[in-house]
């Protein structure tokens, strides 16, 4: 067997095509250098199957294999699945911490402490008003001041209570918006299921659907911020996605199961939203502690007076129950100028109500501090993992520029090979083909 004369041309051509494809891939990488979710692609080159030159032929002596050039077997995404899984798990924790911090910070600013207008200042004013009444027990103005300070205090507590419930219902609304029929979860799940189908078809056709894989990965990244997810790639290239503590997988093949019930320990933003408003949740605890402050205040003040000064058992219902004419610095049996009652109430300053409130402020402060610390720690971790991921999948312009030069030179060299072949054939055809003329 002999080597076909024109084989060299084919070999050079395969080199040209392969180098051009690789050059195109590098160009595409550069074009997508700043595209979110894009994974760097590389053209996988493989030598073509060689021509076997049999042994012991009259021309060649020993047998050999002659390469016939190169072909691009596939263009693959450079991606580390392990880093993806890690990123998603940490990203869930990060967005859980972010949601916690956002909500608790709102709650904290509702407290408006330390300031001259917060509940602490109003409590202080209230005790001072009783003290003034102790000094002028018979003055109508002092009684009015006590009622006014009491009403202002009750209103401030009531306002904080309703702000906290507003935050709590906003949290629930946010959860419902995200999980609703046209919410983010449903939309992402639907798109992932669709992409699963398309990817399967494409893979079956032997075409690696890089762009669709990137899109599916980007969607899964996004989904991981809503709750913990696990992604299992099935043999048919479709991803099965479990979501939070949901009973059934969110995405199975080309189907998605939503809506489903989630629990507070689902992780991600949704888990955080659920846990904040759960009975043991931070927001619920703040509300019940505030109710406790209102109760303590009412109980400790009412204890000293014949007709209850405050009515109501919770922050929302706390109100002043008496008119200024019913306020008295003296006990029922005493003369108008006696001030024992007013003195006793003024002495409640620094007492149980105030201590409970200070503890509540300390609690909201440490809740927020903790949530913020969690957030910044998780942010660091997520950034680190994302950096690692970027170093694998991201486009480095330096690297691409180097590739560009490599492939360009390769292309030039292949072209030069073609020229050499052509010159060789020219010798054969032009200078040896004159026999018989």
């Amino acid at each position, binding site marked *: 067997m002999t080597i076909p004369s024109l084989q060299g041309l084919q070999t050079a051509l395969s080199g040209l095509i392969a180098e051009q494809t690789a050059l195109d891939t590098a160009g595409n990488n550069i074009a997508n250098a700043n595209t979110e979710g894009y994974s760097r692609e590389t053209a996988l080159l493989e030598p073509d199957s060689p021509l076997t030159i049999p042994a012991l032929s009259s021309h060649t002596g020993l047998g050999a294999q002659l390469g016939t050039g190169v072909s691009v077997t596939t263009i693959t995404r450079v991606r580390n699945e392990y880093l993806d899984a890690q990123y998603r798990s940490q990203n869930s924790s990060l967005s859980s911490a972010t949601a916690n911090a956002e909500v608790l910070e709102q709650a904290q600013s509702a407290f408006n402490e330390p300031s001259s207008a917060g509940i602490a200042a109003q409590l202080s004013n209230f*005790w001072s008003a009783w003290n003034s009444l102790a000094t002028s027990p018979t003055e109508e103005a002092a009684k009015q001041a006590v009622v006014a300070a009491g009403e202002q205090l009750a209103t401030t507590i009531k306002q904080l209570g309703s702000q906290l419930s507003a935050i709590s219902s906003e949290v629930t609304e946010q959860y419902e918006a995200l999980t609703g029929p046209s919410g983010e979860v449903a939309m992402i799940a639907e798109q992932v299921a669709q992409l699963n189908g398309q990817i399967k078809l494409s893979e079956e056709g032997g075409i690696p659907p890089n762009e669709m894989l990137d899109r599916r990965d980007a969607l899964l990244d996004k989904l991981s911020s809503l709750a913990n997810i696990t992604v299992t790639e099935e043999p048919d290239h479709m991803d099965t996605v479990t979501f939070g503590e949901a009973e059934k997988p969110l995405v199975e093949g080309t189907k998605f199961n939503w809506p489903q019930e989630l629990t507070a320990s689902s992780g991600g933003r949704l888990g955080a939203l659920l846990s904040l408003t759960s009975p043991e949740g931070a927001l619920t605890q703040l509300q019940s502690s505030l109710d406790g402050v209102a109760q303590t205040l009412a109980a400790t003040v009412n204890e000293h007076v014949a007709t209850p000064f405050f009515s109501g058992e919770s922050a929302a219902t706390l109100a002043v129950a008496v008119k200024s004419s019913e306020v008295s610095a003296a006990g029922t049996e005493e*003369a108008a100028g006696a001030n024992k009652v007013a003195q006793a109430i003024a002495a409640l300053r620094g007492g149980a109500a105030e201590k409970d409130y200070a503890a509540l402020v300390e609690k909201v402060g440490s809740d927020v*501090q903790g949530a*913020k610390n969690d957030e910044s720690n998780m942010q660091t971790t997520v950034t680190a993992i994302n950096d690692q991921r970027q170093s694998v999948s991201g486009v480095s312009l330096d690297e691409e520029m180097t590739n560009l030069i490599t492939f360009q030179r390769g292309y030039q060299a292949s072209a030069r090979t073609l020229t050499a072949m052509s010159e060789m054939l020219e010798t054969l055809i032009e200078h040896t083909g004159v026999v018989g003329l």
Partner: protein
Amino acid sequence: MVTSTTLDNLNASLAAMERTSDELSSGKTILEPSDNPYGASQVIDLQSQLEGLSTYEANAQDGISWEQTASSSMDNMSEVTQRVRELLVQGANGTYNKSDLETMALDVEQLTETIKQDANAQYAGQYIFSGTATTTAPYESGANDEYAGNEEGVSRSVGPGASITITTNISSLLGNGEASEDGGLLDTLRSIAKTMRNGTAEAQSELGGVYLEKLDGNMETLRDLQASAGSATDQMQTALTRNEDLQSSITGALANVDSTNVAEASIDYANEQAAYEAALRAGASIVQESLLNFLQ
């Protein structure tokens, strides 16, 4: 990657700078409870204590003014009683005739009225000698010498758990008049006037004897009352001084918890500013460099 890291660092330096600037401009290190949760609860506690101290201060000052009013009334009573005593001594020496004694009796009755007026002294619209019945005048003018107040005391809180009674029990001095025969000052004065009008030699000797003794006894009681009003004033003065010390120590504690140390914060701010500028400069030059700059 370099860009995102650089951006994160820039944001971090900017946030630190903002924080220090907030602390400098507000003068507080605790701007919200999460800055220092325990500190925030301490601030609430300390501010309440401070406010409490200022109410105790106001109470003590009010009490002192009350006692000053009481003291000046009692000083007047003392002067008036002294004048009665002089009349009593004159009336007893036997050189005055009946009409002179009649004039003296009128004088004594007028002075009695003056004492009752002094007993009706008011401070900030409250009768100070009526016990807790501060809306009722202790004595009405005229012949009725019945004490209309009560025996209860009005007090002022001048410190945590420290309460000082400021009411002077004037009825222990003045009593309920002649009808009650309680030996109070009013009883004594009415009896003196009556005895002067009587004008007999026996009556005159009574003036110098038993009535002078009674009057001296009443004056002794008045001095006791004056002394106890004075000691209440002293106690309140002491409370004021202690209060001032406490206020300054709590203000100091409060400053330790939540006030910005301006010198420290200013230096921090300058450092952070320098760091931010350096980060900006470094970022600008790092990000610009790439292989592209060197390719032909």
